[in-house]
């Protein structure tokens, strides 16, 4: 019997100014969150501690995804950096609000604003 297939989550990596920008494309849930964890760990392991996470390509995010980005932010902050979110989707913003994470993360409407929040060029 063939193995079950879930559409994989893809994480695009680009740069915003001097900072890595991770853009997950698809759904983040318990079945796919490992791809996001790996992408974040690769950046942090490589010494990149000021990161942008752009949710523009995300169609779904659950508690495991929120746990993943919270842990990554903690690790970035411990190393003197930060993880800044770019999000305009009302449902994801509502999730962040319900969980109080809107008070924890810096949430920007554009990548340029995220770059500025990380200490790069002014938005």
């Amino acid at each position, binding site marked *: 019997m063939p193995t079950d297939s879930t559409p994989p989550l893809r994480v695009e990596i680009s740069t915003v100014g001097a900072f890595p920008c991770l853009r997950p494309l698809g759904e983040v849930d318990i*079945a796919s969150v490992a791809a996001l964890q790996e992408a974040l760990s690769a950046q942090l392991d490589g010494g990149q501690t000021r990161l942008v996470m752009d949710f523009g390509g995300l169609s779904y995010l659950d508690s495991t995804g929120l746990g993943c980005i919270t842990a990554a932010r903690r690790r970035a902050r411990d190393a003197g950096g930060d993880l800044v979110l770019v999000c305009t989707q009302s449902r994801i913003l509502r999730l962040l609000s319900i969980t109080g994470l809107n008070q924890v993360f810096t949430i920007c409407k554009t990548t340029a604003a995220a770059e500025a929040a990380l200490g790069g060029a002014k938005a």
Partner: protein
Amino acid sequence: MNGDEVRLSLPARPEFVSVARLTLSALAGRLGFGVDGAEDIKLAVAEAMTLLLRPKAGGDSVSLLAAWTDEHLDIDLERRVDDGGLAEDDEEAAIAQLVMAEFMDEAAVSGAPPALTVRLRKQRDSAGAAGAHV
């Protein structure tokens, strides 16, 4: 129209969370919940099943029962577990419970061995489901 129900038995594996999510989303649409109501149910069910998968030692399947009346939709999910439940410092489990409570009218988690259960309720009229055809 009362007494109808949908039962599922799903493998207790992450890749089947989306099956529960999409099945309940379709059912919610059938019951006349609007787009937002169906989205709420979809999210809550996914969080419920994800929660049930958190204990490492447990049964190989998750049972899901969705039953409805004119007034509300009830969704019960259950998994047999060996240790009874969730760690108290489980941050993601706490987030999942917050989300379920926000998106449903009632959400209760019970970790009494030998089963971990989640009970969800959504009022049909609270999500624009009045006049539903099922």
